[in-house]
């Protein structure tokens, strides 16, 4: 028996920009997405969705539809009542007075948003299913609808759910004692207040949602291929909703084409498909189309925040009060209650040392698509409001926004730092990131250019945002304390095969983040084997023991933590075997570059692969050592991780059109050590683009009747590459002291930082006109109108910008 050995590599792979191993598969059409799954004898499902935001279902007549050749079944809410449990809400923040309501998989008596499921058609072909759907005759009695929190909270407003007064789904507070906050605000030298609207966004991963279900009646076993960011959570919830035994449910989410939070939730659709597969005894496939996605998949953000920030004239911030109304949509999606509370309200002070701070949140039902996590989930909203208010404060006291930030950033010697909401930031050198950013962009020189530009009637602005994120979710005890109905630890299993090849099973569920590559880098370094000898497997509950999935920038921090501990255990065991082979003391044997060698006697060595072989042969193992070479670990982090950074942007606003042009974007981020700088860079850039999207282009809009006016990619503007400047990135490196790899997470930082950076830049450009805040997105018309109004209000000739476009004749 021979092994090819793990080709030892000299240079560590940690910190190397190893090309993503998943790309060859994904970019050449060889990925295995849910829509690629086809099972013998499968049926096709389509959903009939409500065209009304709020209506009573007087009748759903399916007789004609059932006559269409090839129709296997048509399900309505009335038929399913009692056969499928309500779609669950899995985050119940304590003290939030959560008004839980039933969310039926298909509406039984009432539809509550445009897109709410009314019926499911299952047929031999997609064409037959669609044809039958068109023949379902629904008798709707349209009712009044509310789409905004302001409307919904009116006592006379139509109720989304009977018995929920004022449509208030939750009311939650955190932070300093209200009396102390009131006193601090009263006593302050300076107070600035602003109403911040953070518009609703519509996540649009490349791959829409899909589900394929197959039921084995003999074994009472369900296999569900589904677009999921967290297969084990899906297993738990789908089993519960359908009354199946958890061990007889297998969830497979092998390749998932992005999620941004929208594939965390357990949706009615996948439950319905699984139900039909069991009911009909045949596999059933459902694939969402893009237009359907706009109303049927969860949305993000949608806040109105009343914010007061107080401080002294020397720039010191002393108190913050935030009162938020968060639109949660028609039903409480899986994680929805936690997003505008725990993930938002506990970090509203951002990276600043503000001694007194409080948040109060109303979560509100409306007749709109449910709102849940979207890239950053709560933390972008928190960062946006504090970053806007710090700029307003700086303007109020006549200090440069950069200097106000510098004065209030939590100093490096204050870590671990506990904020006014009681959470403890692990580590940080916030000022170093700020300084690094300023090395790339000379603010003094910019201000001179800005003044020169102003004299030519040009509006140029610089935006800055310093941010901190709470991620790497998270300590399970804290998950429990904040009402998350699950753990947030992570699991890894490292299995070394007889040939020295390595299989890693991880409970995270990457869907674009590249952990097949980064985790292999970690393994390669630790075991000294080659990348090609390592396989990282995920996304199948039959393959992976347990896991909580990918969201909250947790995969590398928590999943990587589990991997690191499991690798330690593998190495420990292998070292015992190596010492036995080398007839040396275990303490004298060390693994280096793929070989166990006796300290001081480099010739006395055995390769890792040989040890693996001997472990499996088990012909001669040391006393008490079991055959085989594998180890698993469950890593429960002791704290969240807190990446941070400083972003800068330079923009120019055309006063004649209101259009914003991005001239520079510069990001300095600190996510701890970077396993793969290229992948980190990609995450940062992608995040930034999504954040800029909210600032300038994206925004869902409903009309008064609750119709989504931005229901397609022809109406809803996602960022386009040609609108973006070259993005400059740089990094500082402050490890998370409690994390085995020191890593902090980087999937959401760009989105968190970019939105306020851009809005601050545009407001800086408009500041000379007396414009200090505008709602997002900063569309050309909105900005143009503000300029028109400012000019109309200003005394003649006082406005900062003259007529644009020098005239010629």
């Amino acid at each position: 028996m021979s092994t090819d050995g793990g080709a030892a590599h000299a240079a560590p792979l940690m910190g190397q920009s190893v090309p993503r191993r998943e790309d060859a598969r994904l970019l050449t059409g060889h990925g295995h997405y849910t829509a690629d799954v086809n099972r013998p004898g499968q049926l096709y499902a389509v959903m009939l969705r409500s065209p009304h935001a709020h209506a009573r279902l007087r009748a759903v007549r399916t007789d004609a539809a059932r006559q269409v050749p090839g129709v296997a079944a048509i399900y309505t809410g009335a038929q399913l009542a009692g056969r499928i449990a309500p779609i669950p809400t899995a985050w119940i923040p304590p003290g939030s007075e959560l008004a839980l309501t039933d969310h039926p998989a298909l509406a039984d008596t009432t539809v509550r948003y445009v897109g709410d499921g009314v019926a499911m058609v299952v047929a031999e072909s997609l064409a037959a299913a669609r044809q039958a759907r068109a023949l379902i005759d629904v008798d709707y009695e349209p009712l009044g609808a509310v789409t905004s929190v302001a409307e919904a909270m009116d006592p006379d407003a139509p109720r989304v759910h009977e018995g929920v007064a004022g449509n208030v789904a939750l009311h939650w507070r955190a932070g300093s004692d209200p009396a102390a906050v009131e006193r601090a605000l009263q006593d302050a030298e300076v107070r600035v207040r602003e109403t911040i609207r953070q518009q609703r966004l519509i996540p649009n991963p490349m791959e829409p949602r899909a589900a394929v279900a197959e039921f084995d009646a003999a074994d009472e076993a369900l296999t569900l291929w589904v677009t999921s960011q967290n297969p084990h959570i899906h297993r738990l919830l789908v089993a519960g909703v359908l009354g199946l035994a958890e061990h007889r449910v297998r969830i497979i989410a092998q390749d998932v084409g992005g999620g941004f939070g929208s594939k965390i939730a357990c949706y009615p659709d996948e439950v319905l498909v699984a139900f039909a597969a069991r009911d009909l005894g045949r596999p059933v496939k459902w694939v969402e189309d893009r237009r359907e996605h706009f109303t049927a998949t969860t949305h993000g953000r949608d806040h109105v925040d009343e914010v007061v920030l107080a401080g002294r004239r020397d720039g010191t911030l002393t108190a913050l009060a935030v009162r938020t109304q968060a639109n949660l949509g028609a039903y409480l999606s899986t994680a929805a209650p936690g997003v505008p509370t725990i993930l938002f309200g506990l970090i509203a002070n951002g990276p600043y040392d503000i001694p007194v701070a409080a948040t109060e949140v109303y979560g509100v039902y409306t007749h709109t698509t449910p709102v849940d996590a979207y890239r950053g989930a709560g933390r972008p909203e928190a960062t946006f409001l504090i970053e806007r208010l710090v700029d307003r404060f700086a303007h109020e006291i006549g200090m440069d926004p950069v200097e106000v930030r510098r004065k209030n950033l939590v100093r490096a010697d204050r870590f671990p730092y506990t904020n006014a909401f009681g959470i403890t930031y692990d580590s940080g050198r916030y000022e170093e990131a700020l300084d690094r950013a300023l090395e790339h962009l000379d603010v003094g020189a910019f201000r001179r250019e800005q003044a020169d530009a102003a004299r030519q009637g040009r509006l140029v602005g610089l935006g800055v945002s310093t941010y901190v994120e709470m991620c790497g979710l998270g300590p399970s005890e804290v998950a429990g304390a904040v009402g998350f109905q699950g753990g947030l630890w992570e699991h890894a299993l490292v299995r070394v095969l007889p040939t020295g090849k390595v299989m890693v099973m991880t409970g995270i569920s990457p869907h674009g983040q590249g952990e097949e590559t980064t985790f292999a880098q970690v393994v390669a370094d630790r075991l000294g084997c080659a990348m090609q000898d390592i396989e990282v497997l995920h996304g199948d509950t039959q393959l992976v023991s347990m896991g909580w999935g990918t969201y909250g920038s947790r995969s590398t921090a928590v999943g990587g933590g589990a991997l690191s501990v499991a690798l330690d255990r593998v190495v420990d065991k292998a070292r015992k075997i190596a010492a036995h082979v080398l007839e040396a003391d275990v303490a004298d044997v060390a693994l280096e570059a793929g070989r166990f060698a006796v300290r001081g006697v480099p010739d006395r060595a055995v390769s890792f692969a040989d040890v693996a072989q001997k472990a499996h042969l088990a012909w001669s193992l040391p006393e008490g050592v079991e055959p085989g070479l594998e180890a698993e670990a469950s890593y429960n982090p002791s704290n969240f991780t807190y990446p941070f950074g400083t972003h800068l942007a330079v923009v120019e606003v055309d006063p004649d059109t209101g259009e914003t042009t991005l001239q520079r974007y510069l990001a300095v981020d600190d996510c701890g050590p970077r396993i793969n700088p290229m992948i980190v860079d990609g995450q940062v850039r992608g995040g930034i683009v999504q954040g800029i999207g909210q600032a300038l282009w994206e925004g869902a809009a409903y009309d008064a009747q609750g119709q989504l006016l931005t229901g397609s990619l022809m109406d809803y503007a996602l960022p386009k590459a040609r609108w973006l400047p070259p993005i400059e990135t740089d990094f500082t490196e402050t490890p998370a002291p409690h994390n085995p790899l020191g890593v902090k997470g980087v999937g959401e930082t760009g989105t968190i930082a970019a939105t306020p950076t851009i809005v601050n830049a545009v407001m800086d450009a408009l500041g000379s006109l007396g414009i200090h805040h505008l709602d997002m997105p900063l569309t050309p018309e909105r900005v143009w109108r503000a300029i028109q109004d400012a000019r109309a209000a200003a005394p003649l000739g006082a406005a900062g910008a003259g007529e644009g476009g020098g005239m010629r004749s």
Partner: protein
Amino acid sequence: MMLGAFQYERPASLDEALRQAAAVPGARWLAGGMSLLPLMKMELADPPALVDLAGVADLVGVQEDGGALRVGAMTRHAELAEHPLVARHAPLLAAAASQVGDPQVRHRGTIGGSLAHADPAADLPAAVLALDATIEVASPRGRREIPAKDFFLGPLMTALEPDDVIVAVVVPQRGAHRQAYHKRPHPASGYAVVGIAASVLREADRVASAAIAVTGVASHAFRARRAEELLTGQVMTDALLAEVASVVASGQEVWGDLYASADYRRHLAGLTTRQVLERLWDDR
């Protein structure tokens, strides 16, 4: 999104195409399909048959024909955008074609398809209006010509009869005119929020003639006649440009949407016209 069932024909000649279309009431021409197929996928159109004109060789290409360019109806936008004859004699048409949709759309979509669809915010309607083009049409009853100014009647409404097919677009050669098309695209759809096509003949300091067409602003593309009258024969001055800008959309029912209100569109139409004219005036 998927298509329902329909009959598909791919004739090799115009006569065959006309016969096939006549055989199925409600049949539609497929001339690139960049608008029709999305409508069908959204279940907003459900034609029983599509007669694909892509196989009719006579309908493709650009030729000089007397003092005009004859552009086959099935000529793709990408070809128009790069065709040397178009660049020389009708640069405005090339500029408009180069800004339609995205590269995929420009390689599938055709001038005939775009004009027949008559989207109120499409680019090519403004170009053919400003160039005083003539649209050649065939039907089982024979051939006829429709001047561009009489062609666009409303949103997705034209002077075409149901069995008409566009054969060619005849564009007068106006090499001496300065031409430009400037579009402010909608950030999601890429269609014109405002598109201004202008063709101006300069004689010394005066405007000898001016044609200005506007798209994206009203129910169909239109000529800004009042602006043209103000310009014709006049010395170009700031004051004149300001006046021209203020009347570009006069007499039109300017529409608004979520992205750009009627007021803002009217403002952009004036501003863009002024910027286009300034640029043309200083050219060369």
